[in-house]
Every structure is written in C-alpha cells, then in structure tokens.
C-alpha cells in the first residue's frame, strides 16, 4: 500500500501490465449479423474482464455496437466454461440493447465516472465501461490499449442506441422490414411463420377461431365470441375478438363500453367445468353509472352460468400491491442480489430479502389466485377480476388461476397460449413495463412476477408442469430481445398501427395483412437449437396420458370431469405421532389439540374460514396433477427463485450441485423409459432391432447414450446451469481494491441523478 497513486492508476493487479494486447489475429474479427443489423461503432484492443479477482482470464477483442446489440468479438475461447448453451441470436458475450439498464464509464487516471444517458457528452476518455443489464448481468470492458477516441465513441453510441425515443427505432422494425423486402423479391409472400416453429402451434388469439376453440375446449356454454372490436373500433387495448356472455347483444356492448376505462368492458378468460367463469374488466368510470352497469353485466354473467350462480367480484386494486410497489420491490431485490457486496449482505440477508417485499408480493398474488380458485371451484361462482385499467394485476391473477385450475396451461403450448391470451392480446403494456425505450416511469416487472409465481408452483408441484425452470428463465430473457413482436408492444393495436406506419414509410406492401408480422418468441427455433430446446422439458412431468404405475400394473391417467369435481375426499381420521388429520382439527373440545390455533389469522368471517378449510383439506391429500393444484403459502414455502436471480453471481454458484443434478439423473431414467416404450411400440416380426440412440432424438437434454453419458454427474453442472456466471463482474473484485472506496459501491451508480452531472 506504499504507493497509493499507483493503486489509483490501476486497480488491477500490477502484473496485469505484462499481458500482451491482441496480436494479429488469424482471421479478422467479424460480427455475425442479423438481417437489418447495422454496425454503428466499434473499437479494437478491448479487454473484457472475466474473473473477479484476477485478470488472467481476461479476453482481448473488439467491442461493437450495432442497432441490435453490443457484441464483443474475440478469438479467445471462453475460459472456465465446459458447456455451451447458446442463444442463436446472440454471441456468447453479446447484450441486446434492450437488455441494457445502465451504462457507466470510468477513467481511473482522472478518477472520473459518469452514468451515460442518451445524447450526452463525455468530457473524459473512458478507460473502462461497465454495463448493468436488466437480466442482472454486469459486464465490464477495459480500454487500456484501445484508441481513446474510438472507445469514447463506442460508449456514446451504446448509450444512444440503447435508449431510443421512438418505438420504430427498435431493432425488430429494421429486421422485419428487411425480411419483407427480401421476401418480396421471392415468389412466396409470407416472410415469417406466425407462431410456428414448434411441433404444436401456439394459438395466438389474434383470430376469431382461436377464441372459439378456447370456448369449446372449456365447454363454456352461455358465452360467445364477439367481433365488435374488429379494426379496434371500440377499444385500442382490447383484442379484436373476445368472448362475452351470449345474452349481451353487440349493440348493448357498444353502449356499455363507453362507461369503462379504456373502453375495456368485461371479457371472458376461462370457464371451469362446473360452469363458473373467470372474467376480467376495467373500472366503470362514472361512479353514478357504476351500479347500474355492473348490475347489467353481472346479470348477464349469471345467466351464462349453468346454475345461474352469483358473481363474485374481486377488486384487485384494493387487495394487491400496485405496480409501483412491485417495481420498488424488484429494484430492491436486484440491488440485493447483484449489486450489493456479497459478503456484506450475508449477515442480514434474510431480513434484507424480507425488506424488499418481493416474496411477500409473490405470496400475495399466489394467495389471492388460490382464493379465487376456491370461489370458482368450491363455491361454484363466476369471478370477475376488476382493476382500474385491467391490464396489469388482472393479467397475473387471471393467468395464475388458470395455471392452478387447468392442466392444459401447465403444458408448454398451453402456457404460451395463456400468455398470448391473458397478456399479449389482453393489452399488457409490455413496451412500458419492460422499458424498451428511454427510461419511463411506467417500468414494472409484472410479467416477471407472474413467471416467479409460476416457478413457485413448479417448485412445489414439479410433476404437474411440462416445462422446466430453464424454460421460465429463458422466457424472461426473451422479453429483453427486441427482435420479437411478442413482448414489444403495449397492445395488439399498437403493433398494427406502428407497423403499418413503418411499412408505409419504408414502402413495404402489406397486402391484406394487418400490420407487419413480427417473429414470435414462440418460434423457439430462432433462438435455440433443437438440442438446447430439449432443456425446456421437465423430466418430472407426468402428462395426462403418461402411464403410471399403480399396484404394480401400468395404468394411464385420463383426464376426466371428476378431476375437476370438488367432492371432498378427506383423509381417514387418524392421530399419528401428534399429527392430526384435518377433519379432527376443530371439533374436539377440551383436548390438547385445541392448543393448536386453527388458523394463523383469526378468521374474520365465514368466508375466510371456509377458504382456510379448503386449503387445509387440499393440502392434506396428494396433489392432483391433472386437476387443480394449489400452492402452499406459508413463509417457509415461498422461496427465492435462485436460478433466475443468482445465475450470474459467481459466489452463489454451487459447483457440481444444485437441483439440476437431480434433474440430470431423472432425465437419464426418463429417457431410458422413453426408449423402452418406443421399443414396445415398434412393430415386430423378424429380428428385433436393438433400440439404439440413433432412432429418434430424445426429448430430454440429458439422455442415456448422449454425449454426457457418463456414470456420474457431469462436471459442468452447477446451480447456475445452463447459464454461466463466467464473465459476469461480481462485486468482489472491486470491493477488494482501494477503488471500491472511491466508487463506493453500485448503489450510487444506479441512481442516475446523483452522478449524472459529475463529469
């Protein structure tokens, strides 16, 4: 520590200086570009920092900013990483522009730093660039050997292009525009499949028939698809087609619509097999009118119920945290997970986690959805979700209720169709909530919260879901890739309007199409190889036709009406080792049992009491994988989704461990069962062909006879798999050096206000 000046000069260990800059490379470093992708700026001889405590793994290469992403191109192989799970759209070191949260430039000679916004000036030549990503990554580049001017230009370009002011500047437009131009020169018109790619096509709910099929699938008699919003004539944030009570005529609907915020009149989501329906609606604007209109609507919903049951109204604004609360919780969670020094947060980790309130909110949404499941299933009442605009909280609650009640939505195709139905088409404002454009106050991770709550269900009930947690994490990441249309817009209308405008300005002939057809996230082949997509499959899943073993003989599950029924099949009364079955919990007086309070909260009314009883009764029996699943909601059961939030934190990585190791082991067995079942189904006669691995590609990522077919657990598995924290800057490197005091942690960097003027 004798030479403090030196330490300020470079907080990298002195011997780093010995590292030679990039030699003449074998091949010129070239960017793999998408159609429509343009290089904006680039700088050579950049060092990407890999490990936190040493620079020996650092990579030399070229940093490029395009209109889609920032790329780091290098000939050096990624160190310390023994597997590849690659996104086909993005290189190993790439960050899509829409994934960038904050850009910090530093000059450690001049001891200056600046958080870069768009159209800003930089008065010093940066020696370092740190990029904070929305997906919790932090990447760091050093410009010690690069041309100072070009380094500066790249930083400014990234700052500018990552925070566009106009929707049409997002890369998807450029990309689709080029696709249309290219395909126009070819014979066949349609440039892009809509939702295709996968074997089963995901219904997008853009058409009348998708809605009609959904009505029929759920046997929702008393409901019809209405077309009054064709051309978005009624509401710009509703889909063109939606489902309403049959007893309401188009003319009535048109009249009613004026009373609702955003003209979002009540529309149907789903029907239980007992006839109860789930409906969502915006608020009636005029308080005086409210009663009257609601009465008309509720009467119609009651008429659509086979038992003419009453309607249960759930006012989400009053019962759940609002989107600002959710955003605040998320920012705190992110701060805690990746920005705060790892060791320093350890001591108070649990209370800090509690203070973020993220898990509290996760629990609140699950709990509310579960209570509505009770109302729909046990009380047999139709439920109306009411929210001011009906475009945020309603999306989570409507989706969660359906995931819990309907096994179809726990398949990959079903889940995707649910997202189309309750989010994309229902007008969840992805553009604002994901903050794809220049910083807006409307940012809120409502969709992530839904994925998190789904993960809780998956965690508690792994055999009920066709997809894996990797799928959920990758789906979350896909909201940050501005190449797909799925998560780009505030409403389907916005897509049509903006892309028509764009098409006209670019001279693209749209023909009969309503707006440009953007690639869909559901076309996973755009992002992942077939092999990598197999990691979406959950080997624990028991599909509805999957054979199971009961009493030694193989049987098939069949989805029957019965699985929906609410018949109370309690466990036989028993008193074993102090554990009392639920039925016996209350009635006995003067027994010791009464010391156990029946509910954590004093029941306020009989409704609460019944809900509690319903949960307990359900919790006491094995989960009905092909019927309703309900979450366990105690504090001890709601967990942090570690794969999603810790995957880039090197210190939190469990090498050779984590749930993935059990996943791996089970996959091998499930694959073996697949192979055997194929062999059984094979027509025979003549010599039996040996069931070999070449037969059919396995549906599972890990399989017997695969490249990872070792008896043990593969070396490359870790709790972060298939993601790798390699190359993610963690806090240790900085907190261990004098510079940490100067920078005093990321907390400051993330609040733009305090630093923006400091240049």
């Amino acid at each position, binding site marked *: 520590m004798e030479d403090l000046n030196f330490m300020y000069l470079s907080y990298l260990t002195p011997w780093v200086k010995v590292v030679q800059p990039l030699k003449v490379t074998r091949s010129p470093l070239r960017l793999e570009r998408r159609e429509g992708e343009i290089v904006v700026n680039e700088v050579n001889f950049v060092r990407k920092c890999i490990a936190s405590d040493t620079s020996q793994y650092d990579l030399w290469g070229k940093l490029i900013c395009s209109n889609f992403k920032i790329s780091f191109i290098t000939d050096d192989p990624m160190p310390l990483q023994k597997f590849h799970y690659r996104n086909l759209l993005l290189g190993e070191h790439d960050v899509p522009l829409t994934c960038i949260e904050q850009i910090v430039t530093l000059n450690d000679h001049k001891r200056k730093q600046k958080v870069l916004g768009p159209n800003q000036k930089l008065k010093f030549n940066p020696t370092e660039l740190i990029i904070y990503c929305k997906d919790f990554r932090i990447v760091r580049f050093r410009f010690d050997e690069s041309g100072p001017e070009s380094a500066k230009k790249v930083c400014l370009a990234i700052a500018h292009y990552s925070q566009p002011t106009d929707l049409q500047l997002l890369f998807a437009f450029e990309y689709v525009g080029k696709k249309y131009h290219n395909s126009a020169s070819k014979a066949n018109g349609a440039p892009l499949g809509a939702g295709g790619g996968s074997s089963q096509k995901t219904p997008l709910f853009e058409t009348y028939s998708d809605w009609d099929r959904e009505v029929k699938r759920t046997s929702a008699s008393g409901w019809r698809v209405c077309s009054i919003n064709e051309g978005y004539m009624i509401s710009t944030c509703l889909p063109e087609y939606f489902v309403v009570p049959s007893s309401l005529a188009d003319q009535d609907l048109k009249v009613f619509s004026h009373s609702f915020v955003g003209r979002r009149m009540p529309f149907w989501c789903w029907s239980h097999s007992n006839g109860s329906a789930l409906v969502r609606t915006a608020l009636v604007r005029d308080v005086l009118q409210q009663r009257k209109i609601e009465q008309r609507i509720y009467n119609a919903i009651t008429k659509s119920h086979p038992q003419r049951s009453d309607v249960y109204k759930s006012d989400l604004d009053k019962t759940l945290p609002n989107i600002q609360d959710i955003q605040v919780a998320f920012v705190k969670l992110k701060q805690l997970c990746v920005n705060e020094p790892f060791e320093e947060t*350890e001591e*108070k*980790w*649990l*209370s800090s*986690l*509690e203070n973020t309130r993220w898990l509290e909110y996760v629990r609140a949404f699950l709990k509310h959805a579960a209570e509505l499941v009770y109302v729909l299933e046990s009380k047999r009442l139709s439920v109306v979700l009411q929210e001011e605009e009906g475009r945020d909280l309603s999306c989570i609650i409507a989706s969660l209720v359906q995931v819990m009640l309907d096994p179809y939505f726990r398949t990959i195709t079903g889940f995707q169709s649910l997202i189309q139905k309750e989010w994309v088409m229902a007008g969840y404002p992805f553009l604002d909530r994901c903050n794809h454009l220049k910083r807006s106050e409307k940012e809120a991770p409502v969709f992530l919260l839904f994925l998190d709550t789904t993960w809780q269900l998956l965690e*508690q*009930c792994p*055999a009920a879901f066709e997809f894996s947690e990797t799928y959920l994490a990758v789906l979350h990441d896909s909201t940050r890739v501005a190449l797909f249309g799925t998560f780009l817009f505030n409403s389907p209308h916005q897509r049509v309007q903006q892309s028509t405008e764009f098409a006209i300005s670019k001279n693209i002939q749209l023909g009969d199409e309503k707006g440009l057809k953007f690639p869909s996230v559901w076309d996973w082949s755009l992002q992942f190889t077939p092999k990598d997509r197999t990691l979406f499959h959950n080997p624990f899943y*028991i599909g*509805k*036709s*999957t*054979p*199971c*073993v009961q009493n*030694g*003989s*193989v049987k098939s599950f069949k989805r029957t009406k019965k699985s929906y029924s609410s018949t109370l099949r309690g466990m036989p009364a028993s008193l074993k080792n102090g554990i*009392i*079955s*639920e039925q016996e919990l209350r009635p006995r007086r003067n027994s010791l049992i009464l*010391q*156990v309070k029946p509910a*954590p*909260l004093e029941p306020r009314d009989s409704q609460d009491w019944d809900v509690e009883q319903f949960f*307990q009764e359900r919790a006491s029996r094995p989960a009905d994988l092909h019927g309703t699943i309900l979450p366990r909601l*105690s*504090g*001890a*059961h709601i967990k*942090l989704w570690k794969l999603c939030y810790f995957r880039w934190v090197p*210190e*939190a*990585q*469990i090498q*050779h*461990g*984590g749930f993935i*190791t*059990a996943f*791996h*082991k*089970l996959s091998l*067995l*499930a694959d073996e*069962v*697949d192979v*055997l*079942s194929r062999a*059984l*189904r*094979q*027509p*025979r*006669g003549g010599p*039996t062909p040996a069931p070999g691995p070449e037969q059919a590609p396995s*549906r599972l990522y890990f399989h017997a006879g695969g490249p990872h077919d070792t008896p*043990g657990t593969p070396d490359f598995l870790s709790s972060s798999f298939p993601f790798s924290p390699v190359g993610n800057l963690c806090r240790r490197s900085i907190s261990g050096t004098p510079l940490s005091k100067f920078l005093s942690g990321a907390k400051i960097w993330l609040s733009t206000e305090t630093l923006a003027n400091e240049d």
Partner: protein
Amino acid sequence: MTVIFFSSVPSQNYFGKKMWIISFKALTGAISSYETLPVLALDLFNKEVIYICPFNGPIKGRVYITNYRLYLRSLETDSALILDVPLGVISRIEKMGGATSRGENSYGLDITCKDLRNLRFALKQEGHSRRDMFEILTRYAFPLAHSLGLPNHHWRITFINKCYKLCDTYPALLVVPYRASDEDLRKVATFRSRNRIPVLSWIHPENKTVIVRCSQPLVGMGGKRNKEDERYLDVIRETNRQVNKLTIYDARPNVNAVANKATGGGYESDDVYHNAELFFLDIHNIHVMRESLKKVKDIVYPNVEESHWLSSLESTHWLEHIKLVLTGAIQVADRVSSGKSSVVVHCSDGWDRTAQLTSLAMLMLDSFYRSIEGFEILVQKEWISFGHKFASRIGHGDKNHADADRSPIFLQFIDCVWQMSKQFPTAFEFNERFLITILDHLYSCRFGTFLYNCESAREKQKVTERTVSLWSLINSNKDKFKNPFYTKEINRVLYPVASMRHLELWVNYYIRWNPRIKQQQPNPVEQRYMELLALRDEYIKRLDELQFANSAKLSDPSASPSSPSQMMPHVQTHF
C-alpha cells in the same frame, strides 16, 4: 478384532442371522412393553465360486459375504459342505494367479485365517468377480485399513488408552504419529484439556495430509508451555512435507479462546508454535446454540410466524450458526485438499465443535462417508467413540431440563448434513428420512447407539451386549433410507456454498408437527423417480415377454404372422 473405534458399524450389535432381540429400555424407565427388532446382515456379495478344498479337491459352491461373515454352500449334489467364517477370523487376503493364468482354478483368492486354516477360492476371470470379492473382504475384514490405509510409516495405532487410562473420554484405540512414543503421548496429555491429545481423524488418500483432532492446550494466564506438545505438533507437521506450516483451526471465536486462559485453557500462540498457523473459526459455544434453537421453536411452534417469517428466522441466528459451522468445515477441507496442509482442529474440550468440524470436513472430502454405511461409521467414529457427550447434551433419562450441559450440537451437525444434501441432491446415498430417523432415535433411547457420554462408560455399562444399535434398524430397512438420486462418485470433494442465500430452515424436521406446513410426503421429486423406475422395470418385463413370444413364434414355422397391435398392449406416453 472386537470393538475398535473404526470398527464397522454393525459390530456393535451384530448377530449373523435374523434374530429377535429385546431392546434396552432401562433408561426410559418404561419397561411395560419390550420392543423387538429384527437384526439383519448386509448382503454384500453373492456369487458362484470354486472352493479348493484341501481334502476333497475343487467344489463348486455359492459364496455369500455379509458384513459379518463369509458363508459358502456347496452346489454339488454329493457334497454337503458348508463354510461359515466370521470376517474377524481373516488375517490376510491374497490374490493368486494373474490375467495370463491358464491352469484350471489357478485364478482366485487365498485367505489366511487366524484360526489356523487357509481358504482358497477359484473365480472366473471375467466380470471382475475376484476384484469385487477381494475388495469387499478387505473392506469388511479390515475396516480400519480400508477407511484410512493405516497404519503406514507415518502413523501407528496405539493401545495406550486400552483401559481408558490416558484419556477416559477417548476411544481405546488411537492413531498417532509414528515418531511419537507412548511416553510422549502421556506428557502431551498433561498439557491438553481432559487429556484429549491430538490424534488422527482422517488421512488424505493421495497427498497424505491429515486431519487431527484434540482439545485446547492448557496455556492458562501465565502462558505455560509444554515442550512435548510443541514437538508433538511439529512431528504431526512433518508427516506431510508439502507445506512447511501446520494449520491449527480453533473453532471458537478469538475472544472466547482468550477468555479460556482464565480457566487454564487457551490456544497455540505463534511465538511458541513456530511452524503452525492458527485460525479462529468463530463458532459459538453450546449455550449459544441451545438458546438459538429455543428461538427457532418459538417461531415455528405451535404457530408459524407468518408476517415476518424471514426476519424472525434471522433473529434466531440458527442459520447463521449453521453457516459458521459449514464455513469452518469448508476451510478445513479446503486446507487439506487444495492447500495440501495438515490440519489440527480443536475447540475447548474437543467434543462438540471439533466433532462437527472434523466430521463435516470428512464428509466433504471423502465420498465414502456419504454412503449410508460410511455415514454410520463417521458418526460412530467422530461422535460416539470420540466422546461427544450425548448423555449430557441430550439429557437421556434426566429430569433436569434446564441443565446447562444440554445443547443441540449433534442436531446442528445433522442439519449441516441436510444443508449439504440439499445443495448436492445426488451426492448422498441416504435421504432426509435417514437423517430424521437418526435424530428421532437420538432422543428415543430405544437403541444403545447414543447412550452415555463416551466409550469407556459404554463399555462399563455393556451397552453392546444390552442394547441394539440404531444402525441395525437402518441397515435392515436400507431401501427406506436410500436417496434414489444417489450417484456414486469417488474422489469428488464437495464444497457446499455456505451462504445465507442457500441455507434454509429444515422445514420437514423443525416444522413437521404443524399440519399446515407439512411438506408433501413422499417428496414429489423422489416419488416421480420411483415411479419411473417401476415403469422401466415393467417395460423391460414386457419387452422380455415379447421377445420370448417372438422367438417362440420364429421357432414355430406354422404360426401365422400376427399383427403387431395384437401382440403387444398399446402403451401410451405423452412423449
């Protein structure tokens, strides 16, 4: 080969065949109902061999090896020969013949017995059956040698504590540096709290670094020295020449270690122990742990704290203590494995925190201890034989509930093991039920395993004769305690992440009485695996039947070709 501290576990109570034994109930005071238990052997080996009888020539037979004996029954009709040899009788096992052996019955094993006979077996060269038999016999006949490869030229076994004269809380058998004489040991004992001298716990199979355990040195306020103790630790250091420092881990917080000087204890200061580095691991004492667990109970029973679950959990500090214990063990393991330095571990008396650290470090370092059998040995050795004061810590049969000697140290250790098994779901042969069963019988007094404070007391009370071992219950129902995801791996050191981010409250143990919180049983993930296993077996059976039917059809030309759909039941899967 009777009771030595490394003895294979079931030897505490082992009877060759199924027996019904009255369990030891004296301490519970309730002798109203005698419980009975079957005691079963572990079946380890079962193969056809040729027994080369020195009197009648080669005899074909089937050999069975259990953890107690070798048993051979003749398969030849004209011979009723039976061999029944307890493994303890075996003195030496040698392989005879090599890969090139051509002569009949020239490839096999030659076993020299202590009871004046030799047994020769010829085995087939294919299928590694000789290797398997050799390894199993070696492991079970010489369990001491198996686990640690001892004695070697640096370490010797000493009988100095045969009658518990040197240290009454240590086992009768100790492993000490070869270069330390019994006289040295006696002198060292005077300088270590309760005479618990540094002895070997584990030796690294490759780099030969060791984990040594002991109690604190009796330095006292005056800073006493003991030349023999200093030399003794130096001798331990010299058994490993890769690093020129010996690492001493004092499990206590620094201040506690200093405070102990007032009562005559202390720690190894570096101006006296020149070749040693001392680190404090900051693990608190038994009283702190007891209070912490009480707080855990407060937040989970009868009602689970709901509104501020995480901060309430934090305020118990239970997971923080777990973290410190695990962190300490990781440091020990890492020092031995990566740092290639021998390690001495102690706390004050060396029977609480020390046992936690050595056994957890061994669990991280040595995959053998992650098997059911290995774990039983680990507990038997590091905890039971080395005098963790189970009677005092648990208070078996004692009504003084406020006794300050009580503390959940062993529970804390099992919790740490559970945390590890959560982080490495495939690394342990045993499941959660195994750990819970151990904990349940820690209190039940149904088995002798955890009774009394140390081996000398157990011997005096003839525990091995009067009680059944918990391990015999477990080993006779092994399937119930197996983790279906277990993937056996040799030589992989496991480093759990001792971070609050990964540590969890063990809900299935601590909150199991609350019907609302109870987790699904069986665990859905394990259950799914078992279902798939059953499905696989079913399919294999069907395939075999089909193949059989096919070959029958092929051999019968008159059979008409039947359609495939008729031939096999249609099995549907969702894949």
